[in-house]
């Protein structure tokens, strides 16, 4: 073993907890109970109170999470990993899977994000879904999602993660297709499900490989034994986990489902497809740091995937006229940043999680803001039909503006701190990666400014008969809270708090020696962002925005509108060959297999029909057959003896 202990990732070794920490199981159990009650009793019986039950369970989980967080904060740094064995899930021979909870600095942050943002979005949904006949069912699904997501981040092993992983996949499927009377929504749900299956296969194979290699799938066991595995095994493990992460986090090449997933109700887009579920891939990579630390190949692959996605998502975001799809492209891109940071290893893990949190705030804020705008515009999502809304929906505009400033990285806002750190670390790793991340920041500034201008500024391009109005309080209060978090999220970095907080999980990194002083990078980033904003101002604000999207556009715009041909590539590379294969197999089955089977069947029946004539019903012929049989038996015996 040539890896010294100081370099290797920390081994997961939880200790037991008491007090609130022994009630950790309640955190996922409460929303699960809510989902159970609502979904079992059904939409009709629960509709008067289901939304409040749903919100209350998540809020209660948040409170427990908050108290538990402070308990953990009060513990000694070396003792901030709490394990709780719940029960033995199954035993098969030597393979025992215990279902247990691992509550450490990493999962504590996720719990707060999921239940905190989750509570706000639940609250928002009370207003947003007020006129939907199936609101109770919607809250049942939302609770199911929150419960599954909490299982995902609180499990102490890969199998538990997989349980949550599939649970959030199911909830995501149900919620994207919530309005399944719309064919587009039903198709989008199916697409998300199918694409995610590809990623899930990575997860299944990785878990299986871990069991085959280490004989355990718990974080504790795997982190302890990982350094003993062969390099090839570690490489394969890292790539399989990355495949899983790509599916859930909509990273290239499994990105295509996220844009279509915007067919779901907007709170779903905010909660699942921006703040929480899509970050599960980042969680998986960071949680598996004890594997990625041992494989250069794996880390490089993560960085490449992250860099490609952050550029692709940003470019797609530039060309979309659908406000939610523009935000979805942005989400892809921002998760690309997180992946890139996670791929940078110990230096980047903490910043990946930091950006994940701030992104959770500002992107949820903006999605909910977009929902509020749609609410005002009679559910129209086309930004070409917006314009000059800042007067009509002032609260939404102001809160959205906070999110906007955060995402482009306006100095002082939360996104500034988190993105700046990632770009800086990327430059520390390699010039090219740094440049990609920098370019992404510029493009982000461009498409977000475009979105702001098209939605809130300029002249009115409203559809006739649309009378925008501000949303009710129940929707604006979550917007205000999230806006505040978008502005202030940066405090987590004060005194490198988040880095130190996560050190017990991901290890401590020596600072890279950068060729330029840190402040220089910050200035460069701010300058690039300013250029992006300026270009958007010149190209969008200074020109008239046509109500119909112009068709004579550059090649790049066309490509971006077509999601950079992601669907076309899937269709050409996977769907068509798949269809052809299936058709070929069906033809083979019909013509050959069935032919042989049917042929055998009819041949046997024909034979049977012919031979049954032997069965004449006459005793004399039966006796003859007995006699012939006797002859056969005698001859068979004699033949053996003579031969």
């Amino acid at each position, binding site marked *: 073993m040539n890896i010294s202990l100081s370099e290797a990732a920390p081994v997961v070794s939880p200790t037991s907890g008491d007090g609130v920490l022994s009630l950790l199981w309640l955190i996922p159990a409460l929303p699960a109970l809510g989902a159970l009650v609502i979904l079992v009793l059904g939409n009709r019986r629960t509709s008067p109170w289901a939304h409040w039950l749903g919100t209350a369970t998540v809020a209660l989980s948040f409170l427990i999470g908050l108290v538990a967080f402070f308990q953990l904060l009060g513990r000694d740094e070396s003792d901030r990993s709490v394990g709780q064995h719940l029960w033995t899930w199954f035993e098969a021979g030597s393979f025992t899977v215990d279902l247990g909870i691992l509550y450490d600095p990493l999962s504590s942050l996720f719990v707060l994000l999921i239940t905190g943002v989750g509570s706000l979005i639940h609250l928002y949904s009370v207003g947003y879904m007020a006129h939907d006949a199936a609101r109770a069912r919607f809250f049942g699904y939302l609770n199911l999602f929150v419960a599954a997501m909490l299982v995902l981040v609180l499990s102490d092993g890969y199998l538990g993660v997989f349980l949550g992983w599939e649970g959030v996949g199911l909830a995501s499927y149900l919620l994207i297709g919530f309005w399944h009377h719309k064919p587009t929504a039903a198709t989008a749900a199916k697409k998300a499900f199918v694409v995610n299956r590809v990623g899930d296969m990575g997860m299944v194979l990785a878990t299986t490989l871990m069991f085959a290699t280490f004989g355990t799938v718990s974080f504790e066991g795997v982190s302890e034994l990982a350094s003993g595995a062969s390099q090839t095994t570690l490489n394969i493990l890292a790539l399989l986990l990355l495949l899983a992460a790509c599916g859930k986090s909509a990273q290239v090449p499994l990105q295509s489902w996220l844009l279509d997933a915007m067919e779901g109700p907007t709170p779903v887009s905010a909660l699942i497809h921006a703040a929480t579920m899509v970050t599960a891939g980042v969680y998986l990579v960071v949680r598996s740091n004890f594997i990625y630390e041992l494989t250069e190949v794996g880390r490089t692959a993560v960085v490449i995937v992250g860099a490609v996605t952050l550029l692709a998502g940003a470019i797609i975001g530039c060309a979309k006229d659908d406000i939610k799809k523009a935000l979805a492209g942005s989400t892809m891109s921002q998760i690309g940043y997180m992946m890139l940071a996670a791929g940078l290893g110990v230096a980047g893990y903490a910043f990946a999680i930091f950006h994940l949190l701030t992104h959770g705030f500002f992107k949820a804020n903006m999605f909910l803001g977009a929902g509020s705008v749609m609410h005002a515009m009679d559910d129209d999502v086309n930004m070409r039909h917006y314009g000059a809304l800042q007067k009509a929906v002032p609260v939404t505009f102001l809160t959205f503006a906070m999110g906007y400033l955060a995402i482009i990285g306006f100095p002082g806002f939360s996104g500034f701190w988190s993105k700046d750190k990632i770009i800086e670390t990327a430059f520390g790793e390699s010039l090219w990666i740094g440049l990609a991340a920098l370019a992404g920041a510029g493009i982000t500034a461009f498409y977000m400014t475009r979105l702001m201008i098209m939605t809130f500024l300029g002249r009115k391009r409203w559809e006739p008969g649309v009378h925008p109005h501000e949303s009710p309080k129940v929707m604006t209060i979550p917007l205000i809270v999230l806006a505040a978090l978008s502005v202030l999220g940066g405090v987590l970095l004060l005194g490198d708090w988040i880095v130190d907080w996560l050190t017990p999980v991901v290890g401590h990194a020596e600072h890279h020696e950068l060729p330029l002083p840190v402040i220089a990078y910050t200035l460069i980033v701010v300058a690039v962002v300013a250029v992006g904003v300026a270009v958007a101002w010149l190209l969008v604000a200074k020109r008239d925005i046509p109500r119909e999207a112009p068709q004579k556009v550059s090649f790049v715009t066309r490509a971006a509108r077509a999601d950079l041909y992601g669907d076309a590539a899937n269709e050409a590379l996977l769907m068509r060959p798949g269809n052809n294969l299936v058709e070929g197999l069906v033809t083979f089955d019909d013509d050959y297999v069935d032919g042989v089977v049917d042929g055998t*069947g009819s041949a046997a*029946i024909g034979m*049977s029909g012919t*031979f049954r004539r032997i069965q004449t019903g006459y*005793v004399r012929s039966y006796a003859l057959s007995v006699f012939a049989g006797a002859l056969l*038996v005698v001859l*068979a015996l004699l033949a053996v003896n003579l031969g």
Partner: protein
Amino acid sequence: MSFEAPHIEYATLSPLLIVFGVALVGVLVEAFVPRRLRYLVQSVLALVGLVAALAATIWVATDLTVRGDGAARGSIVAEGAIAVDGPSVFVWGTLLLLSLISVLLFAERHLDGGLSAFAGQAAALPGTEAERQASTRGLEHTEVYPLMMFAVAGMMLFPASNDLLTMFVALEILSLPLYLLCGLARRRRLLSQEAALKYFMLGAFSSGFFLYGVALVYGFSGSTHLAAIAEAVNGRIGGQGLLLGGIALIAVGMLFKVGAAPFHSWTPDVYQGAPTAVTAFMAACTKIAAFGALLRLFYVAFGSAERDWTPMIWIVAILTMAVGSVFALSQTDIKRMLAYSSVAHAGFLLVGFVGLHEGGEGISSLQSVLFYLVTYGFMTVGAFAVVTLVRDAGGEANHLARWAGLGKESPLVAGIFAFFLLAMAGIPLTSGFTGKWAVFSSAAQGGAWPLVVIAVLLSVVAAFFYLRVIVLMYFSDPVGDAPAVAVPSILTTVTIAIGLAATVVLGILPGPVLDLAADAGAFIR
């Protein structure tokens, strides 16, 4: 010249003696008990007798003495004529259980206007005034119970015989009552009588073969004791012809009884013509008894000559499986189809029999065949019991076309029957699967894998005709009037329930019965 009275171990033979005793008492009951009480007295007597015999069997089984190396347990009794050992006791227990539930079928009087399925007056010619009178007076033959008891006694003696002459006598004791029972159907009497006559004539014919074989073997070895024959076969120096001829002719007699091809031709006609209750009893119990005897004879007496007779059994096994599976395809009568199915099962059993696996690794051939016999017995009685329920104006509706759409008409009955068919086809989670698995795996371990491959392929063909009936029941519309499903009394219900329960339990938890078969150990010599 002084005569020494033979020494009889009454206690060890008690199961056998109880059944014989009950049969004799039954004859006396016919003579002395008033007609109206006979049904009750006879059926209760038969049931009590069988239960008592079963209890005695269990007592005997717990008391078997361990012999020699410990592989076999039991003792040779009645001056060397009978061997009461593990396999004997196992077969006895199985036979008695199946006879018990068959008696319930015999006693069923709910299905046909308050009368049993047996002729009112067998001597009355079909279609005559006498027959009509017998039927209007509500007569019924209660002699069927003592007849059945004699048959059961014969069946118990057959596999326990340690002497070729005893074996022959047992063969006749079990056969003669069955010939009679076959001819006693209340409905379709001509068919029934024809079946009885055919069965009798062919049975007599094959008995002749058996007896001639016994004579030849006696000529070779100078004894009819299995142990003495085994010794002679082991150290044979000359007289090959006598031995081989003897083995061949005895095999013919045995294979006729188990219904193996090409000695099966009586099976469909007799199964179809006989009253269904008798068919159920005969199909299950005769096969078990005959296989028990076949195993004992060939493993104990002719064991050293296995090289001589295995190729012959291979041929017969393949032929039997093929004939059973293929002929069943074109049958239009449910009872004939089940008859061919039982022929196919005989073939699968022969595969297990000829595997000649001694045990050690995995289960031995003897155990696997014994286990298969148990699974086969319960599913067969159950399936035939269901056949008695589907009726129309003319009695049982046995034509397959009348079963179309039964799934809609009576989901419960169709479901149960479908389950029995799946079990016969050997679908997992039924006893049919575990049984097939047992015989095939022991045969493969014994080195007969080419035969196992053929058997697996032919069991696929066999699955085809079982599934055809299921398709017919569930996916076809009834032709004309839908057949009515008669509501049986508790008797048939219990029979079906036991058959079903055994088929399910042996499919899911075969362990205890397999252990029991393993405990039976080997034959004593």
